[in-house]
Every structure is written in C-alpha cells, then in structure tokens.
C-alpha cells in the first residue's frame, strides 16, 4: 500500500464539490472510454450525468449535466468514484457484497446480475449486518479484512418481492432505475472485519434432462481462483499502469488463500434459489 494513501471513507457518504472538470487527464497512464487514471488522480466520464475528477485525497470535483441532482450523483460518487479513489491510493475493491456472519465477513463476489446483493439481502433478513455492497474494499492480510463502506443494499423489485420485503422501506437509487437501497436493520460493529469466506456467484447451465440441483458449489483450484478473483477486481486493467502490480498480487493471493467456492445457480425460482444459495454460502 502506498504510505501516503488514505483509506476510503467508512460508511459516511463521500462529499464532492461542483466545479469545472477537464475532458482528459494530461498525463494519463491508462484510458478507457469512461475512465482515465494518472498518479494521484482519476477521471470518470458518465456522458448523461457528469464528469468527475477524483483526487486521491480531498473531495471529488463534479461537473454535472444540466438537471442532474444530488441524489443522482450519490449513486456514482459512492460507487465507482469511491472505488476509483481507493484504487489510486492502492486500496483494491472487489465487485460484490459483504455481510457479517458469526465472527467474520462473508464476501460475495460475482459479475453484474449474478445475485450478489440478493444473496446478501437474504442473509440480512436472517440477521447478518451488511458491511459493503457494490464495491468491497479488501485489505490484504491473513486473513484479509474488509472495510465497512456501505450498510445499504441495492435491490431490484424481483428480489424485494421474492424476499417478502416492502419496497416502501427502500429509497430509489436513481431516477429511471427501479433499484432501491435498503438499510441494514442491524449495523455492523467494528471496521476492519476479517473475511472468513469468499463465494463467487455465477449463473450456470440449467441441468440436462429433469430437474437437477439448483445451486452447484465448486471449489476453485488455485489458477482458476486467481483468474476469477482478478477478473472481479475493480478496474484491474489500470493496476499495472499505476505501478500497483506488486500490491495487487499480494491482495489477490490473500483472497485466494480463502479457498473461494463458486456457487453456480442453475435455474429454479428466485425465492427458492436464494434460499438454496444462502444455505450453500453458509456451508461453503
């Protein structure tokens, strides 16, 4: 970790300031159509929302499009902007959610749409406090630890229905999206929470022939685990250009030392498969 770096904020919202933001970073070491990074600074361009200049320290500067409100910006400032700022400071995030179970964190990783927040919500409903959602900051160690960054879960209406929750209890995340943020009824205690388990969610092939298992657990061998976890890290392509490869390799090794288990969802109804996932995650 870079000595001067500052850890991402804990559960508080990231503050920002309105101001002009350049179209490009002059000394970018890595560029994609939406993101650019250079030492100590990043730029995020969301064409319909805002350009956001993200320093390692200090509040991001936001040049928003006409009519874009604060709530709209919160979604990005507390999501990808927080992840980008963390990355610039050598704090790596995994795309996923985390909840507190027993004496440590269960880290739920997976691609968008794999059901990470839905599984976290299932566990939240049985009393597990939410530790993070969207991007999970994990610090390397034995065991690795996870920072408490977001105690709300973003849930889509189908999950809300399947879990018997009341949509009125959640706040709309953005105009134009049906996703709502639901606060964890029980707040987590402590901050750097040791990670006990890492599960990776995926959507598998419905079984051939008649009904088979809805959820299929599979231990990942080391090369597969490395590849899978690396692919789920936030903005892995920018790690090497930022000179963070050694730190990132330690981070990755720390995560795969948890012996991640892939839970492949193979059909079934939403409520049924979430219950099965929760059982499998508990036993993973």
């Amino acid at each position: 970790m870079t000595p001067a770096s500052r850890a991402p904020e804990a559960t508080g919202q990231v503050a920002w300031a309105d101001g002009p933001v350049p179209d490009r970073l002059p000394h970018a070491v890595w560029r994609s159509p939406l993101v650019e990074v250079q030492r100590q600074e990043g730029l995020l361009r969301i064409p319909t929302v805002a350009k956001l200049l993200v320093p390692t320290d200090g509040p991001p500067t936001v040049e928003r499009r006409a009519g874009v409100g604060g709530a709209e910006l919160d979604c990005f400032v507390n999501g990808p902007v927080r992840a980008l700022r963390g990355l610039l400071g050598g704090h790596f995030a995994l795309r996923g959610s985390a909840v507190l179970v027993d004496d440590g964190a269960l880290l739920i990783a997976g691609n968008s749409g794999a059901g990470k927040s839905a599984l976290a919500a299932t566990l939240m409903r049985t009393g597990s406090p939410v530790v993070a959602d969207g991007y999970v900051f994990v610090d390397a160690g034995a065991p690795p630890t996870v920072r408490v960054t977001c105690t709300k879960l973003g849930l889509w209406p189908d999950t809300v229905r399947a879990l018997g929750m009341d949509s009125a209890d959640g706040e709309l995340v953005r105009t134009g999206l049906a996703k709502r943020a639901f606060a964890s009824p029980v707040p987590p205690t402590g901050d750097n929470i040791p990670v006990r388990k890492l599960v990776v969610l995926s959507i598998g092939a419905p079984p051939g022939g008649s009904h088979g298992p809805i959820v299929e657990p599979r231990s990942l061998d080391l090369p597969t685990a490395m590849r899978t976890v690396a692919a789920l890290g936030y903005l892995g392509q920018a790690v090497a250009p930022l000179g963070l490869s050694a730190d990132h390799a330690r981070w990755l090794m720390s995560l795969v030392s948890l012996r991640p288990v892939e839970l492949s969802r193979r059909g079934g109804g939403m409520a049924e498969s979430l219950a099965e996932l929760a059982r499998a995650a508990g036993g993973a």
Partner: protein
Amino acid sequence: MMERATTIWLASYPKSGNTWLRAMYSAWSSQEQPRLDRLQGLPIAASRQAFDDALGIDSADLTADEIDLLRPRADEVIAAQDRRDGEVRLRKVHDALLTGPAGEPVVSVSAARCAIYVIRDPRDVAASLAHHTDRPLDYVVDYMASHVAAVGAARDRLEPQVRQRLGTWSEHVESWTDQDVIPLLVVRYEDCLRDPVAVWSAVLDFAGMGVEPDRVSQAVAACSFTRLQDQEKREGFNERTSPNSLFFREGRSGGWRTSLSAELAAKLESDHQGVMQRFGYLNGGG
C-alpha cells in the same frame, strides 16, 4: 476499415440459428467438437459482463438508454483488445440495427469487419420462440409484430444481458439487410440446413478467414444437430430457459406446419408479407 476491424457480427432475430452457427465457428476455429458451455467465450453484444469489464463501470447503475449510448464504446474496447491479440472474433447479436439516443447504431460500426445476418422463416421462428420462452403461440405472433419488442428489457430485475431492441420481425430483418454501413452477408437458415458446407464456406470466404474444405467439413460434422442435442441432454446449456425444454429442439425447417394454426400462420404471412416475399418464404422457397 475492413482490413483492421476484428469483429464479425453474427446477427439474427432470436431462434433463427445463431447459436448453431456459433457452434460451427467454435468447431471450425478450435478444430474440435464444440463445447456448448464454452460458446460464451465469444460474448454476445448485449453481455452485461462484457460491457462492465470493457468500460470499468457497473451497468446496473445505468438506465437502458444510457447503456445503449455506451455500447459501441464497449464494443470498441473489446475489438481493440482483439486487435492487440491478433484475433478476429464472431460476436452474436440479437439487436435490430437501430440507432441509440445519440443517433449512432447500437453496436459499433467501426469495430465491425463485417456482419452475417441469419434469417429464418418467421413461422418456424414463432414456433421455436414459443417453445423456448414457454409462451403461447398467439402471444409470440403478436410479439413478432410489435414495434417495441425487446429482450432483456425487464425493469424489475437485473438480467445478464442488457436491453436489446428487436422491433417487429420485419423491422429486424430490414434494419440489417437495408443498412450500408457494415458489409453484410445474408444467410438463410434453411439453406444452412440444406447445405451447411456451402453456407459455412461462403461465410468464411466473405469474412476473409480462408476456406479450407476439410476443416469446414469437420466443423459441419461436429455440429450436426443430433450431436449438439445429445451434448445438451448430457450437460445442459445455459441458454436454455427451462429445464424441461431443449434449446436444440428440432432444427428443421417447415415444422410450423404442424405447430401453427392456419389462422396464426396467416397472420404472420400478413404481418410480414413484404419481407417474407423478398427472402423467398412465400413462394415455396422456405
């Protein structure tokens, strides 16, 4: 652009033979029996995962229109990586070639080497789509006449694929076959069934990938419908929507004659008369 671009769009309305041709491509490129679970290695244009990975943002935070605006950029990132790797890739696309909010086609034109458009008799498409989606035939026939038909468009959940606007079946066909920004080869599914070696050779030739007759024959043999169906029965297939219905179900032409009522067949013929005539589906050519 032709010599540098690396993406070959394999475009079709759903249930028109796209997956079969992708299997053929897998068999041809690997020179092995294709594995259905590895066809995903060539991400569909609407893959949420591919979009997120390419752009470094979570598409779950974006509206469908915002995603449409950014999809060509994601395609270009993927194509740039392929160019660095020296690879030409076939990518499945079910979107109609409509413009997004900024007036740009929803898939990248600059990333495209060319496009192969697979067309199938809409009466067989209707029968297959009804089975695949577990919907009544009359619903599917209406869906195929809907200007706002789309897949991945549910607002109440996050799907693995982003929204893909289809339009009517006729609009879908015309959006690809009447455009002039991407070089196009139209392949009739029925011709592919009749003479797969000839059709696949034509595809390879058009895409500039080189035709080796033995290799083509091996790929075609590896992708016989029976072989793919057997593999699906043994191992499953993640593009199947129900555990009780096979994705590779019949794979023949003219099956609509036993599954569609005369009334529904007549409605499809009326709704899509112009395009059906143009592609030989109303004059005994299907």
